[in-house]
């Protein structure tokens, strides 16, 4: 009897340890095809500018890790060109797509750590799309993301060439990334449920292509200057321009 009880106890422990009560994995979602008719799809393009005197970029002191080998690197928080074009602004369709579902790109997006800086500094992915995190440096990094709606994670990459992947499943603008080894390293990813997003380059320009006709709320997000929204209506095969202006 004692042996029987012991065996049952061990079996219960083993089942608990191995997740014996774990539910079967849910069936994968059915593949989604693009609901937008290319014959009627329109586009929104535009430019983001900054009014006023922008704060200067600061030189990053990387003396705490000589292996960073990126002397003279500057912060990328505020990057304004001579004509006022504002870089690293995440522009996306915040509202107006209703319940449309879009296929998730199979190609992963690469977030590289090079010269002890994240490349790119601001980027976007579709919810469910894989992010491949790469360490191109001859030093250690930890990749620490602390979203609100998605799962927080913190992984270490001790060796050059190491790769990790991560998938954010829920829309969230923006998810911050940080390296706690090199406190100056940070990056932001906009996770959205559709493919209509862009990040401004040095010319401040953005373009959202393949939008179905309709009225949309666009939002432009900047790390330091916050957000701006604009409403735009596009007809079949129509292209509209939208301008966003931030000020300090």
């Amino acid at each position, binding site marked *: 009897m004692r042996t029987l009880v012991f065996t049952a106890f061990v079996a219960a422990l083993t089942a608990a340890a191995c997740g014996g009560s774990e539910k079967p994995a849910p069936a994968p979602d059915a593949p989604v095809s693009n609901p937008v008719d290319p014959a009627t799809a329109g586009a929104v393009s535009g430019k983001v500018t900054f009014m006023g005197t922008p704060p200067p970029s600061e030189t990053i002191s990387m003396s705490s890790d000589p292996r960073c080998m990126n002397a003279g690197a500057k912060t990328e928080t505020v990057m304004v060109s001579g004509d006022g074009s504002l870089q690293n602004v995440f522009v996306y369709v915040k509202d107006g797509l209703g319940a449309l579902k879009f296929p998730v790109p199979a190609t992963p997006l690469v977030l590289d750590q090079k010269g002890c800086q994240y490349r790119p500094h601001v980027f976007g992915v579709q919810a469910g799309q894989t992010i491949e995190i790469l360490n191109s440096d001859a*030093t*250690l990094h*930890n990749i*620490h993301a*602390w979203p609100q709606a998605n799962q927080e994670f913190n992984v*270490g990459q001790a060796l050059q060439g190491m790769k990790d992947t991560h998938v954010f499943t829920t829309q969230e603008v923006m998810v911050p990334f940080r390296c*706690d080894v*090199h406190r100056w390293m940070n990056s932001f990813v906009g996770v959205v449920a559709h493919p209509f997003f862009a990040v401004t380059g040095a010319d401040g320009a953005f373009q959202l292509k393949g939008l179905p006709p309709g009225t949309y709320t666009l939002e432009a997000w900047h790390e330091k200057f916050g957000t701006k929204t604009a409403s735009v209506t596009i007809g079949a095969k129509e292209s509209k321009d939208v301008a966003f202006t931030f000020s300090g």
Partner: protein
Amino acid sequence: MLLHLFALLTAAATAVLIFAGGLVTSTGSGLSVPDWPNSYGWFMFTFPIENWVGGIFYEHSHRLIASTVGFLILVLAFWLWRAEPRRWVRRLGFIALGAVITQGMLGGITVLWYLPDPISIAHASLAQIVFCLTAAIALVTSPGWRRCYVARDGADLSAGSGREAARQPALPGRLAARADVAKADDRTLQRVARVTLAVIYVQIVVGATMRHTDAGLAIPDFPWMFGHLIPDHWDPKIAVHFAHRVGALCVTAMLLATTGHVFAHHRRRLELLRPSILLLVLVTVQITLGALTILSRKEFIINSLHVVTGACVLVTTLVLTLRAHRARFADALVPAGGAAGARLAAGPDHSDAAAGARA
């Protein structure tokens, strides 16, 4: 004596550990080593030194110092178990060991769970308890404690201040001994010291809450608060920060009350006078460091010194409190007339007898 020196070393190492922990929080390095107990997959003690870069330097050093302190406390507990005749002191060693193990677990959990505020605050608060325990062991194993702060030649160190003693008429033998016992067993001092100790600990917990909820600059100016005596707007962070500033005033008032009582009534008792003087110095330094922490926008060395000085204020108050209670311990001596060996307490110290049997 060797045991006492070892306990002192352990307490000093614990203070260093608290400073190292302060550096980890002040530099935001708590998650720079994402795994635990390993470091980037390496066994903690074989993690290559060339990889101690950036935030890893602070976090990994903290782990190594913590391991050293854990080892020292383990040795201390074992040593006390083997050599200490007083049962309650032996128990103190095991309590310290349990506390430092719990402390290590909290440190690991807070890393693996991405620094949740309650765990981080508990980690910071328990660190102070560990420091108090090691300091208490160092104190009660000291020669001064063992001879009840009676000088080696038998002179009474527990009488009142010189002027006060001069005013007192000479009392015959047994009466004089009773008066000195009353002096050594000053209930008012004991009460005020206990309250001060509790207020300081609460203040440290509020400080830890402020640090770990990132409220250190929630009120950005000093000595004013948003330009006023009282903040003109509130949110939870401002409330925590404000509570810490009010706490600083309470601690200062309580310390002035305690040390003032010592200066007024026990000026000749060096075992009380010395920690009292030290406390006044420490609390002045601590308030200065608190102000500088804000004015320097949380410069990490200043911020960490503020943490460890706070711990020193707590431990010095603990020493003063325990010494004020010395006459109430079971192995207390009659403090007058060099009557070494005579018991103040009515009952025998069973623990000593038991330890004698063990020896």
